């Protein structure tokens, strides 16, 4: 039941299953709505990798089905998306989780904690 509740509220387990592209997209949408091409450009800028358009659309569909993002009215042929409240919670939980793993990893490598 607890796991089910976490899923409904967009907890970290949902995002973990959704994959890296989903995390990148949510991170990109965290500072405002964007359409597909703007997402690819932004992700290339902050993560240094180019998301394939097929991967992008797959992740967008998945995130929309999970209720973590929502489509805004289309502008011309472009479909902007924005992060939902559940998406913000999911992203925050996921980043917290990554941060914990990162801290432990750095400590164990002798690099010191964050």
């Amino acid at each position, binding site marked *: 039941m607890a796991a089910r509740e976490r899923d409904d509220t967009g907890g970290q387990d949902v995002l973990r299953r959704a994959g890296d592209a989903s995390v990148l997209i949510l991170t990109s949408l965290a500072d405002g709505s964007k359409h597909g091409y703007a997402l690819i450009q932004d992700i290339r800028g902050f993560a240094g990798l180019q998301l394939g*358009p097929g991967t*992008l659309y797959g992740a967008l569909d998945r995130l929309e089905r999970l209720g973590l993002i929502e489509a805004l009215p289309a502008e011309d042929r472009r479909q902007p998306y924005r992060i939902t409240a559940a998406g913000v919670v999911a992203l925050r939980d996921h980043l917290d989780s990554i941060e914990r793993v990162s801290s432990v990893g750095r400590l164990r490598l002798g690099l010191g904690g964050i």
Partner: protein
Amino acid sequence: MPGPRSMRLVESALRCYPQRWRSRHGDEAAEIASMLIRDGTPAHSVAWSYLIGAARMRLVIEPRRRLGAAVGALLLAGSLGVPVALLSTSAPANAASVAHSRTAHPHSAHPHSAHPHSAHPHSAHPRNGDSRPADPRYAGGRGAPDGCDQHDHC
């Protein structure tokens, strides 16, 4: 502006998506492809990405619908009295004979599970009423009609 050949490649890949997806994202997807190619991304790379995306969409999302359709078809077939064996085999000629033997033995749902010795590779004895040919594919429990789909359709 990307050449017509590049865009034809991308459009071919986009046609692999379900109609529902294309009506919603098709125009934007073509525009994104055009902009990525203009930025220097190879057209085949963009087309490949869409092709993989379409395959994933059909494999991950569509099966839910197919499962529903399959269950519906099985229920309908059951209500019409069609033997399940007819639906489970990919070889129509064998299906007829298997269906005959199974309807004669309602408790033998699987051709090899009904007889304790039939799983042995050398025990390809036809049961009473089973007119299945002594095909070596059926002898060892491998390649049996229920497993044919793995080889025939993949």
